[in-house]
């Protein structure tokens, strides 16, 4: 599903190149649950951003579902966001001015899903996440864990084939973190959604099927669990 070849990312400042990623090559198959680990500054987030096409690599090639997406035009990228990729952020990044329900509905609006189906899918997902009672609340009325659940619900509602999560539990207490990880595992196993998460936590990583260890921009270890 994902194929990275010789991905490099560096910033050139005053003639000195500072590398974030060097010679990253890997393949991620449909249905995998990959955790990217490594110390701060190892390039985890950058790698995830490249996978999510939020950043472009300086060098190398990236193909997503058999298509070369290394340099992709805006329209095509938005198409991918709408249909295949769901993002989950450490800081949740819900829209403050929208209710829970509206936040979840947003991707469907952009996907131009008809009204009736939109409502049923939102209702469905609210139900699945046990959040029906909270649908009219605003993000700042929820706990961090609940906000992150909304964030995941929002990522899922468009029925993506892959979820990219940047430290999804970084801001959460361990009990809530566990809950989120369980959810990821379930989604991965029951629905076959590919999940790639960046994490610091060995515990979280253990939920996945594979761990990529990054150090100074290089994949040091690729462990299948």
């Amino acid at each position: 599903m994902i194929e990275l070849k010789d991905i490099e990312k560096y910033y050139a400042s005053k003639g000195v190149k500072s590398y974030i990623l060097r010679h990253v090559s890997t393949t991620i198959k449909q249905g995998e649950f990959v955790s990217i680990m490594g110390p701060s500054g190892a390039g985890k987030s950058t790698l995830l951003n490249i996978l999510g096409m939020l950043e472009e690599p300086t060098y190398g090639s990236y193909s997503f579902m058999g298509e070369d997406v290394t340099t992709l035009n805006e329209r095509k990228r938005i198409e991918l966001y709408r249909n295949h990729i769901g993002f989950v952020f450490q800081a949740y990044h819900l829209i403050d001015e929208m209710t829970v329900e509206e936040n979840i509905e947003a991707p469907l609006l952009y996907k131009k899903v008809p009204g009736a189906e939109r409502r049923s899918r939102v209702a469905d997902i609210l139900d699945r996440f046990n959040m029906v009672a909270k649908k009219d609340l605003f993000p700042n009325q929820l706990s961090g864990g609940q906000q992150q659940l909304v964030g995941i619900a929002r990522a899922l509602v468009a029925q993506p084939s892959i979820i990219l999560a940047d430290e999804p539990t970084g801001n959460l207490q361990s009990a809530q973190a566990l809950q989120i990880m369980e959810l990821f595992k379930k989604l991965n196993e029951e629905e076959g959604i590919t999940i790639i998460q960046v994490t610091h936590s060995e515990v979280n990583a253990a939920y996945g099927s594979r761990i990529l260890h990054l150090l100074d921009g290089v994949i040091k270890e690729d462990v299948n669990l």
Partner: protein
Amino acid sequence: MFKLNLKIAFRNLYKNKVYTAINVAGLALGLGGFIFILLYINYEKSYDTWDKDLDKVYQVQELDLFSLKEGKAEWWGESDGRLMEMMKTSLPNVAAVTRVFESGREEALVIDDRAPFFINNIHKTDSAFFSVFPYKFLYGNPATSLKNLNDMVVTEDFARKYFGDTNPVGKVVKLTSQSWVTPTTPYTITGVIAKPETPSVFELSVLIHAPVYKFQDQILSFWPTYVKFNSIQSEKEISQSLQKIYEPFRAAMLKKWKWSPAEYLKNGNKPAVRLKSFYSVHQYPLQQEDWFTLLKPILLLSSLLLLISIINFINMFTAQAVSRAKEVGIRKVTGATRASLIKQFLVETALQCFCALILGIVLLELFLPYLNKEFSLSLSITGSFNIGLVSLQLIVLVTLITLLAGIYPAVFLSSYSPHHVLKGNFSHGKKGSKLRVILVGLQFVIAVGFFIGIMIVSGQIKYMESRDPGFDPTGVIYLHVPMIKIHADRVRNIDGVKYFGVNNGNVHRNPKLTANYKYNNEVKELATVFVNIDGLQTVGAKLLSGRFFDRDYKQDTSSTVIINEGLEKLYGGNMTGKYITYKNDSVRVQVVGVIKDIQVAGFDKVSPPTIYTASKFNATWYPNEEFINLIRYEHRKEKQVLADLTKLWKEISPQYPLSFTFLEHDFKKLFIAHERFKQMVKLFSFLSISLSMIGLFSLAAFMTRQRTKEIAIRKVLGADDKDIFFLLNKSYLWLMVGANVIAWPLIYIAVQHWLAGFAYRIEMPVLPFLMAFIVSILATALTVSVQVRNAVKSNPVQALKYE
């Protein structure tokens, strides 16, 4: 601390060069306009304050005995000349009494053997003038100048212009008041006075000691009279003392003349006099609007402009809030109090206001020559006699604006709590944005108003300029002194002259003659215009039916009239051939023609229903003497005609040169005031619209920056450029719709009011309102989109980073 604040202020302003420049430029424009008004107010306020002794001078004012305006008698600045002697002898504390009035006509002056030239503001006065008005003398002696009849005093400007640097005292010049009528009189120059430091109601160049008319029975003569007392008086007390002298005098006079102004007395008016300070003569003029009333619209316009630029300032400053938040947080953590932060931000504002002030003054200085010329003023910033006062006013103004513009941003910026700001992921929320939206909305209410206003004003002026005035002003001149009959044929014989006529009511002379006419058993008082046989053709009147007066019809000089369209309508249509009577049916005249209304006074007022007569004996009390003063000539022979006419005139009147006006110039002059008003509104419209655009731009910048995170999220959720674009534009478009809806009724009322001042006006058009709507929506979309573009093109990663 202050020095540090100033240093930081400078660095911050430098860092945001573009914003600072726009801010300062906008404010400078607003301030420039306002300083202009300030200078103007100072100028008007300073009238006749050039000597302390003027505080002791009072003008004598008398209630008009002869006519009432809406049932009330009016005060006039002229009073019965007989009062002068009475005041000298009977009022207490009087130092001197004088009279002075402007000649009101062109008088020709001959110096040495040079060619005569015209002066049109000769002031005629008596020997006491300089006892009342303490002018400074450059040459001559105030005590003896103007002592004798035919003494003359000139101003320094006049002396320099005609005598160079030599002392003109002792020179004899020749003055001719009017051609044909008065003989030439020699005058001796006895003094040269310095120009006073402040403007004055007397626009002096030449003062002469003119003869006093001997008072005859039944003759009233009213003069502007001024009394100087030994000390400053209470207006009320001296007015009462004067009234005590005046009442028996006037009563005795009316009784002697057996004349009782019954209608006048009926309304509870009684003959009265009063004394008003000389200073008030210019400040509260009688029978005309005082300067402040005339200034009001401009004051309003420039205040609006200043308001817009202050709003901009507030918006721009708070728009920077995002980049200043961290600074505020850190300062607070390191021990700054909120008060000290507010102080710091105010210093920044003050600095910008000060720069704006300097720039505004420079701008004004650049445009002042133009403005002075356009409004015939002599304002100046630096050469001002009251530079101290001006500086003080400017300091107060800048302080006021600093507070007005600075207080809100300062309070807003200093309110950030360090806890939130320093956490890193600082979101600004919607705090304070509502006020800014309202402010920008307000700006647009003003801008939309101006936009609609200027379109309608232009429409009305264009309409007036293109409307048929009912006569043809091209190729006609009128002589300021009418030619006497014996020379008329010589003028007619000049090659190129088509008509030599008179049109007394329409052009130049006696415009307000009326008489009673009877038609259909109904008596009406109608405007009556004297013409001669050629009079109507001379002005190019347009015949609607019938014929013009003609030499071939003998009756045209005794028993026919021509009427205008307005009168025909009043009488109910088709009047040609019908008869009108007057003087109790003793005279019967036939209407031989109907002409289009002649709009010689422009389109402000309706041209009244009018009767044109070429008869010497007519319905009015005045004989039609046919002082011929209008010449119509072939336009292509203009040069030749004027040269011949000048030559002819010189021959018959060597001491008094030919003086005439092109009718076309006069007619165009009617539009100058409107045209000037249009230019002004145009300028203010342009400034207010561009300033509002800047305001909108900064608001959009601010709001868009505030929403970067939201935009980024939406983007990764799959929103495309179009969605974001629409999302961000939407609120501004609603703002514009709101501004339009509020502006419409306001400007409708204002423009309606303005249009009501024109008798001939356009219908209130709908197009400007629609245009304003469309243009404001388009302009908004464009302005906002420039900002939004950046947000749309930006990479969401930057906004979503968690660091």
